[in-house]
């Protein structure tokens, strides 16, 4: 059996994978797409994709949802949640076996680094690469916040991990997004609280979303500052009045540093969030190695899905050459 490109994704809600696969078909690049949902049809471990059949891996997603639902005979909220967590862990335990059975260098992004990415660590790596980052601290007391505010800084609070979405019993939905803390709302902050990440609030001229692909930066400016809804966080989408998104070219020096940062994490693709302040300075925020890139590709006409297909092809051909 000849070696091929392996795409790990999910069967639903993954337009980006579909789009890349359509380019692969069109460019006649052979590939195997394995969705997390397919693991439920495997008979035994030998059915998992093996190292010898795989020339390159693009790890995009684990799974959208389990094709079967399980519940305990006597359920309550806590046991239901524990069961859910258990099933996720079980699935991940199986899925991540591939991280070890398929040679690490074949993965477009190092999968272990990708699955365990730590925001605080990435910020410190960025600083080591000479990239400016907003002042960031993790605090547990109102006193610490007051001290920082006294220094004239306005702060934002955001999770160290990832944002969550909550639902109440009436079906109301709550999004966790970046929030501002200032002297006006300081009274809402308790004296002591769970360790929380606070960051200096940057008054932005615009935001930048860069898709990094094999050494090249494809950037887009997002003009969200005129819109009250998206002023603090552009993900707070305004559908009536979408933010203006246009192509942008980062300074060569910053692109070089970002390349160094991505290489140090062993990522060949990923989304990078940056902010430009009113003086025109760049501030690095974070990396999303599996970030959506359709939202950059389409408005900037970058054809990133095609470029990714070509990169996978290049990597798999390279792998074949080595073994000939």
């Amino acid at each position, binding site marked *: 059996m000849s070696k091929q490109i392996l795409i790990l994704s999910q069967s639903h809600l993954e337009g980006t994978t579909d789009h890349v696969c359509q*380019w692969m*078909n069109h*460019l006649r690049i052979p590939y195997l797409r394995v969705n997390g949902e397919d693991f439920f049809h495997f008979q035994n471990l030998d059915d998992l994709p093996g190292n010898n059949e795989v020339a390159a891996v693009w790890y995009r997603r684990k799974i959208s949802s389990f094709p079967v639902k399980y519940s305990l005979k006597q359920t309550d909220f806590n046991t239901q949640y524990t069961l859910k967590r258990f099933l996720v862990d079980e699935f991940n335990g199986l899925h991540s076996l591939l991280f070890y059975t398929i040679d690490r260098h074949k993965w477009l992004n190092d999968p272990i680094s990708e699955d365990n990415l730590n925001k605080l660590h990435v910020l410190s790596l960025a600083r080591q690469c000479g990239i400016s980052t907003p002042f960031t601290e993790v605090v547990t007391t109102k006193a610490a916040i007051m001290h920082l505010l006294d220094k004239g800084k306005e702060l934002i609070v955001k999770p160290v991990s990832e944002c969550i979405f909550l639902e109440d019993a009436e079906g109301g939905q709550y999004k966790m997004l970046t929030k501002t803390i200032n002297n006006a709302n300081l009274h809402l902050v308790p004296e002591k609280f769970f360790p929380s990440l606070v960051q200096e609030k940057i008054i932005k001229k615009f935001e930048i979303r860069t898709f990094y692909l094999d050494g090249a930066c494809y950037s887009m400016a997002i003009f969200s500052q*005129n819109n009250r809804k998206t002023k603090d966080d552009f993900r707070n989408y305004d559908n009536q009045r*979408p933010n*203006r998104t246009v192509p942008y070219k980062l300074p060569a020096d910053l692109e070089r540093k970002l390349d160094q940062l991505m290489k140090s994490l062993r990522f060949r693709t990923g989304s990078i969030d940056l902010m430009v302040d009113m003086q025109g300075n760049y501030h690095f925020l974070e990396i999303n190695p599996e970030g959506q890139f359709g939202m950059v590709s389409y408005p900037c*006409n970058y054809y990133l*899905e095609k470029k990714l297909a070509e990169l996978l092809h290049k990597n798999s051909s390279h792998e074949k050459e080595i073994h000939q």
Partner: protein
Amino acid sequence: MSLLCDLQMRRFYHIPNDTADVLIFLQQHSISECMTHYGEDNRKTIKGYIDFILNKELGFTDNQLLPELTPLDLSWDRYSDITNVIIEYNEEINYTGSFFRELFDLHVQGLEIRCYRKTTLDKIRELLEVFNGTTLKFIKLVLAYDDTLELQILDKLVKQYPRVKALLIHSSPADNPEKIFEGSVPVIFVSSNINSCLACGEIRSSYFISNMELFTESQHYNTCLNRKLSIDLNGYIRNCPSLPDNFGHVMDTSVQEVLDNKAFHKYAKIRKDEIAGCKDCEFRHVCTDCRAYLENPQDIYSKPLKCGYDPYNGTWEDWTKNPLKHAAIAGYGLGEIIN
């Protein structure tokens, strides 16, 4: 006149050439340099242009020029050899054959199914089944009016076949735009009769579209015919139902044979920038084209016959009344449908 296209918001603004000149000047110069350049007398006018740009969120002001805001790359490509298909539906033709399978395996994105005559919805459902399991995204159904085509029934149809995203019902008792499927699918009832492809090729400002796909494709290719394929009423494969040449019959032709045929691609590279009249028209990259009905049928680069716009003085006229077009109208046998 000039056209300012907002490809993201899918809008366009028809502006005087003088305004366009000022905006182009502002790409490289500050507002104060612009004021100096055009003189104090024009200060108010220029301020008006800038306010318009800010108001429509087409730009923002800053204390410096930002060369990092690079021009949009206008290249165009698609992952399918055929992006759009028109089928002139005929109950006698088998649409499940290998030609159709191969064709839709190419990742065709859009399909228009045209029914010139009354057809039962059972027949339409049978046809729609063919596209289950393909990557086709969009189906437009053109149907002949029948009093059984109630909105409730059409609503059920589009929920069963969610690829159907638009319907046009011709020969209707009245002109009436409706919506079904929670307002997501338009159903347009029109009283006019669409009984052949002779009705196609009309250029109207209401057909203009300002978006990334059309604007970029139009820079390089013919937006009406590039990577498009049609199957006519008798099952013959064509670029468009209105064009005279065919490339074989669906029963005995493979898709690859059609794609390998040089003649099939002869219109693909005719850009608006090369067509008489269109090349000077500000609407050229938001407009589609028509190569089937031409002002001068002998000249493949001639202006579309069914366009009544004169880009040289910015006026629209009724193309059917233009005496210079009468010979071509008669030649194409369009006399009956324009009356």
